[in-house]
């Protein structure tokens, strides 16, 4: 070697010396440091003759002393194992001190010292337990116990603190082993009875000072070195069975997160190392510990479990990460604790919902299958059973996850969708099987946690009402809603359909109501056929189920009732109504079997529907549904009543519409419903009464041309229709002229009446249309009954409404000179003037001929008042008073139509136009005389087979009635001469 290198080396060595001198000093302190602090504890040993810094001689002497005592003590115990006498405690004391000294000062003697301490403590435990089981109440003084175990705990605690890495594993293992042994040995005596709770057991053990000391040492070990200590705990727990649970609980309560994390970590490591076939006890003990802690530390458990899952998504690709999902599955399968399962499954959907996570999982499957599961089929079967066991709020989230997997997305391989479909199929199949097996059991519900969870029930099958915004929500129906909102394939929908059906059928009527209600409330696009499929199948299942159960109440009806509760809110009910409507019309078109069930159920709920009719938002939809129902057949009186009221309100409110098409269609639907209702005579009467009464009510009268009331409804300045305010009354049964028929008239004192003419009167066309619609409706209703009862009712009603008097309302026409009804006649005439619709109604009645007899009083009053009018009329031509002329003409036409005026008198209406007032007086007087002589009474008419009435043939008319009329014709021959032939011919 050349000199330059040597020189360089010397330089570097000098440098080393220079820089390292301090380090050398420190290092030498470590080994040579004779002045290190003497720990205070060894003063305890000074009493036994120990000096500071034990010399080899001292150590050997102490060792020999210890060995002598310990061997004899232990062999004594072996030979007299039955001797359970605490008298030896005092003798143990020096040996214990020696053992503690050796433990600290002589490393090779540590195992022996610990064994001896264990032996001593065991004896104390046994004496403690014996005192307990003796039942003498006063336990032996804990003096010596406290002494030794306190010493042990103090010393070991101190050394643990000073060098946890050295002592932790040693002490932890030792303490756990001893506790495990004692727990097994004294399992039955620690609390004194067999059925003690875990808390009592913990308390029992902690009252025993050696056990307490070792337990606290274990806790210290866990605090310092969780991995090793928890592993020891796990092994011991597996070995001792349930007896050691108290320790796990005790330690776990101190460090829940640590213990859970370590326990899971160890389990996972073991699982990964053994390729999915870990020793049974390991998984079992992991499970046991978890289910212990599950009561109070569920969030910790969930966090740990999810952390394991999340790790696999964060790019960890080692064997442990890849084994984590199989591990969790195995854990879930072997776990008997619902809480653990719940911890594992809750929030899983949000955890996995980013679809790249699902894809990542899918990629791992190929790694799992030959390794941890026998085959794909086996894995799927396992998952199916797990799914069935998943309850509570996790059930819907799991199902959501499955559906997410089943929907084909570009990110996921096709195989995933296939597998998920298999799983869903398996789930459905399994539920069906269970249901079938238990079909004869007495329990009304079958407790499959998954189904319970889907219905929104709790983990224990209880009914935890899931309510959002005050209304009950069915989780599975919510899922359906979500699924339908997104494009999804047929397979998913069919699985969903089956599941919904099972939930609805198996989980009791309340669930059925909630779920069906929620399903009906789902707002879907028009095009989704899935919704109707699901609804159809649910309803089918419900009805079939009902048939099997023979229960009185139809669950379907109950469910519908729930869905249509008015508290739910208009928009929701509107959706439900639309769904029902589509369902009805489709099932009717396709002749589905559910049609009859559905209509029956709807019929049950007629009052509810009636209540909805006059909600401005829902009216049309509910009337549409009602119009599809077969209301012809007998339905309860109450239903008829409320429905009639409601529909007639709807009828009038339709007329308020400005849009002609909606007006006509609304009225058309009303006619449909009303005509059905009219098949009962009660219904007919009520309907007619309501209609006719309504016509004369101020708020509706203007629709039919009553000018006086044209501005009536503008009094209400709030802009709301009164009908809305009155909606709340409309399902009452109203008795005419009682307080129930009083309507809310708006607020008095809302200011002056607005100045008139602010709004134009309705156009004559509109009024005609309204009148025509009304007449149509009435005649449709009347046509429902073949005996002409309707027209008579209208007639009687007209009398009731228009004639304010109850006297002289009979058929006979009195002498002309009886004028005591004069005032009344004028009132009647005025009514006809104010309400033009009265004429229309009268004409309607007249078409039924015989029915007009009941209106005899009205006709008479009109005739009388018109006669009086013309009598005093100073004009030369009747045409100068067109209103009165028109009234006269209409009156005569009505009388002709009803065959009040037979034979030659039929031409009277054609004559009147050209008359002078005095001629009109003559004519009217003749008519009066004829009527007086021929009292109109219903028996003068007979019914023809066609349903019309025909006046019975009279003897030929006496000339006295027509003489004046012929004269008048003659005097006006220029205009009405052609009518003379009727007069002649009739002779």
């Amino acid at each position: 070697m050349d000199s330059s290198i040597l020189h360089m080396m010397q330089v570097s060595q000098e440098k080393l010396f220079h820089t390292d001198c301090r380090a050398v000093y420190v290092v030498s302190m470590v080994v040579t440091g004779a002045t290190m602090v003497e720990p205070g504890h060894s003063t305890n040993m000074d009493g036994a003759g120990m000096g500071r810094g034990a010399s080899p001689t001292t150590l050997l002497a102490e060792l020999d002393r210890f060995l002598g005592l310990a061997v004899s003590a232990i062999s004594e115990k072996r030979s007299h194992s039955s001797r359970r006498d605490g008298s030896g405690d005092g003798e143990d004391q020096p040996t214990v001190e020696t053992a503690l000294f050796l433990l600290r000062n002589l490393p090779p003697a540590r195992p022996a010292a610990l064994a001896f301490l264990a032996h001593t403590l065991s004896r104390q435990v046994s004496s403690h337990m014996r005192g307990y089981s003796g039942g003498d109440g006063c336990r032996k003084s804990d003096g010596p116990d406290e002494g030794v175990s306190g010493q042990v705990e103090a010393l070991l605690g101190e050394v643990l603190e000073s060098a946890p890495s050295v002592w932790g594993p040693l002490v932890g293992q030792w303490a756990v082993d001893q506790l495990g042994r004692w727990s097994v040995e004294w399992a039955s005596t620690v609390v004194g009875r067999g059925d003690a709770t875990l808390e009592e057991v913990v308390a029992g053990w902690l009252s025993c000072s050696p056990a307490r000391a070792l337990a606290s040492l274990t806790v210290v070990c866990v605090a310092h070195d969780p991995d090793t200590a928890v592993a020891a705990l796990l092994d011991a727990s597996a070995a001792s069975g349930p007896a050691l649970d108290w320790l796990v609980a005790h330690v776990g309560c101190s460090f829940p997160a640590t213990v859970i994390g370590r326990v899971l970590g160890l389990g996972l490591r073991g699982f990964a190392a053994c390729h999915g076939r870990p020793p049974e006890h390991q998984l079992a003990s992991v499970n046991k510990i978890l289910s212990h802690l599950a009561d109070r530390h569920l969030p910790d458990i969930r966090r740990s479990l999810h952390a394991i899952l999340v790790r696999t998504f964060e790019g960890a690709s080692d064997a442990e990460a890849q084994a984590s999902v199989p591990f969790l599955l195995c854990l879930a399968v072997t776990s008997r604790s619902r809480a653990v399962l719940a911890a594992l499954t809750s929030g899983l959907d949000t955890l996995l919902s980013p679809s790249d996570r699902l894809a990542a999982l899918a990629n791992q499957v190929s790694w799992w299958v030959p390794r941890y599961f026998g085959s794909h089929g086996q894995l799927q079967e396992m998952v199916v059973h797990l799914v069935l066991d998943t309850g509570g709020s996790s059930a819907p989230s799991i199902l959501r996850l499955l559906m997410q997997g089943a929907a084909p997305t570009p990110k996921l391989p096709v195989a995933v969708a296939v597998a998920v479909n298999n799983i869903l199929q398996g789930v459905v199949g399994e539920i069906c099987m269970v249901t079938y097996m238990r079909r004869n059991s007495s329990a009304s519900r079958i407790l499959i946690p998954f189904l319970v969870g889907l219905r929104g029930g709790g983990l224990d099958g209880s009914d935890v009402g899931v309510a959002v915004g005050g209304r009950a929500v069915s989780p599975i129906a919510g899922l359906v809603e979500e699924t339908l909102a997104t494009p999804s394939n047929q397979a998913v929908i069919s699985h969903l359909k089956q599941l919904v059906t099972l939930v609805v059928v198996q989980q009791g009527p309340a669930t059925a109501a909630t779920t069906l209600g929620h399903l009906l409330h789902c707002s879907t696009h028009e095009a989704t056929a899935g919704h109707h499929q699901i609804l159809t199948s649910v309803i089918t299942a419900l009805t079939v189920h009902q048939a099997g159960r023979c229960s009185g109440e139809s669950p379907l009806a109950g469910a519908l009732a729930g869905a249509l509760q008015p508290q739910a809110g208009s928009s929701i009910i509107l959706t439900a109504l639309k769904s029902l409507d589509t369902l009805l019309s489709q099932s009717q078109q396709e002749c589905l079997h559910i049609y009859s069930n559905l209509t029956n159920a709807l019929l049950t709920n007629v009052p509810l529907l009636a209540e909805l009719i006059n909600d401005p938002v829902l009216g049309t939809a509910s009337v549409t549904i009602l119009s599809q129902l077969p209301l012809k057949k007998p339905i309860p009186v109450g239903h008829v009543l409320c429905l009639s009221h409601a529909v007639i309100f709807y009828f009038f409110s339709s007329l308020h519409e400005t849009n002609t098409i909606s007006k006509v269609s609304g009225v058309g639907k009303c006619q449909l419903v009303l005509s059905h209702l009219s098949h009962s005579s009660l219904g007919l009467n009520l309907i007619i009464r309501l209609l006719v009464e309504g016509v004369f009510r101020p708020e509706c009268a203007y629709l039919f041309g009553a000018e006086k009331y044209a501005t009536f409804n503008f009094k209400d300045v709030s802009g709301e229709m009164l009908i809305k305010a009155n909606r709340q009354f409309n399902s009452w049964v109203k008795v005419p002229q009682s307080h129930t028929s009083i309507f809310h008239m708006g607020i008095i004192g809302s200011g002056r009446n607005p100045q008139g003419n602010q709004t134009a009167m309705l156009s004559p066309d509109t009024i005609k249309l309204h009148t025509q619609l009304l007449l149509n409706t009435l005649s449709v209703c009347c046509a429902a009954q073949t005996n002409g009862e309707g027209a008579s009712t209208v007639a009687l009603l007209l009398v009731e409404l228009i004639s304010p008097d109850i006297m002289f309302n009979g058929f006979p026409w009195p002498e002309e000179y009886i004028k005591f009804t004069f005032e009344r006649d004028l009132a009647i005439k005025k009514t006809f003037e104010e309400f033009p619709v009265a004429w229309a109604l009268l004409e309607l009645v007249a078409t039924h001929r015989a029915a007009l007899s009941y209106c005899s009083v009205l006709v008479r009053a009109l005739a009388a008042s018109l006669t009086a009018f013309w009598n005093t009329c100073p004009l030369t031509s009747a045409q100068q008073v067109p209103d009165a002329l028109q009234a006269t003409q209409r009156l005569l036409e009505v009388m002709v139509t009803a065959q009040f005026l037979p034979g030659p008198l039929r031409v009277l209406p054609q004559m009147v136009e050209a008359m002078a007032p005095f001629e009109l007086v003559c004519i009217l007087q003749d008519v009066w005389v004829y009527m007086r002589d021929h009292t109109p009474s219903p028996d003068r008419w007979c019914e023809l087979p066609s349903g019309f009435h025909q006046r019975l043939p009279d003897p030929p008319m006496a000339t006295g009635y027509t003489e004046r009329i012929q004269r008048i014709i003659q005097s006006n021959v220029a205009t009405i001469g052609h009518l003379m032939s009727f007069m002649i011919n009739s002779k």
Partner: protein
Amino acid sequence: MSVDLSELKRSDFPSCVRQGLHKLEEVLLMPSTPHLHDTQQHIMDQYVFCCRDPNSPKIRAMGPVEELVVVRELGRYLGRAGDAASRNSLFITLFHPSGHDPRTQHKLRTLATLISLAVATHNVSVLEATAVWMQQMCCLSWWSGEVCRGLVQDYFQLTPAAPPHFAAALRALPSKAPLFTANLITTLSQLYAKVGSGEPCEHPPESLVSTIVWWLRGAPGLPPHLALTPLTNSLPGVSLPMTAVPPIAPLMKLCVEAPFFEHQENNLTEMGIAGVGGRRLSTTKLTLEIDGGHEKIETSSTDLYSELHLSILQTLQNVPSVRAHMTQKQVLCPKHVTSVVDAVSERLQGSRPEQEEAGNLALDRLAQIILVALHTESLSGSLSDMWDSLHRLPRKNRLISTLLSSREAR
């Protein structure tokens, strides 16, 4: 020729160990006969390592207390003054390990306890016998490692709370049993250095390294060349001595790879899986701080390994002075050096840019040691593999290029 065991059969538990040992020593002195080996085994199994239950013929499992009694008896018997050769052969017979023998585990455990007890109680005789056993098993072997591993736990966790006589016992080792100390250094450093296994070094506890440094540095009254002791000692009572291995190779690996330790641990800490490493680091700091006492000297492990490096260089420089007494020619096995060089080049390949300084320090140390070893002719045998490995190292380093050019110059 038969052996009379009747007296032995009558003896009780603690004394039967003593008597069994006595009988075993007698048997060992007898001329070899076919059944003699079986008899030895019988005595060891029945009377030395297992305690018989006087009441039942069944052999009872030993509890920790009984094991300690056996160890105590062994220590007492072996510790009495006597012929070193017969003691050594008795010792080797007692603790002869075998891969198939199920009792080996138990024997090794007993031996570890025995050594630990001997260290604590300054039982020189046992320590000497152990040194011979270790050298016979080869200090780098798994058996030696297993036996010595316990000592690390027992004595090298030097916290202030540890009883002072632990340190005292360690301090006394080189003067009382230099051969044992040297072999112990070899074995302990091999536990962490793993020479020849192709694996990188583990980070040894600081207290272990500092103790080794303290031992190697020598002190007044201590043998000057502790590390070279195995080369100069003969082994009485051993018919076919194995090649002695001084601790230079494993220590060299430790100190060359030391610059990378810190980075490695930092990495582990960053990755959040520091686990044991992180805790060890913190313990070390605590230890050093408190040891520094009032001065509060912050030392880093770099200084410690510089010191270790210096010790190795000094040891190598002392080789010529002891060469006359050496029982074998080889001081440093070239194969071991090659494995160290390979380990360094692997470390360098995997290193990150910010570790350049560490890499340079490692190369400096490696080159210095090899230069000195070459200079003192400690390396003998075929060196071509070693040179090939050295050529793979980066020549940027000045000392390495000097080393390589020195070969060309030769």
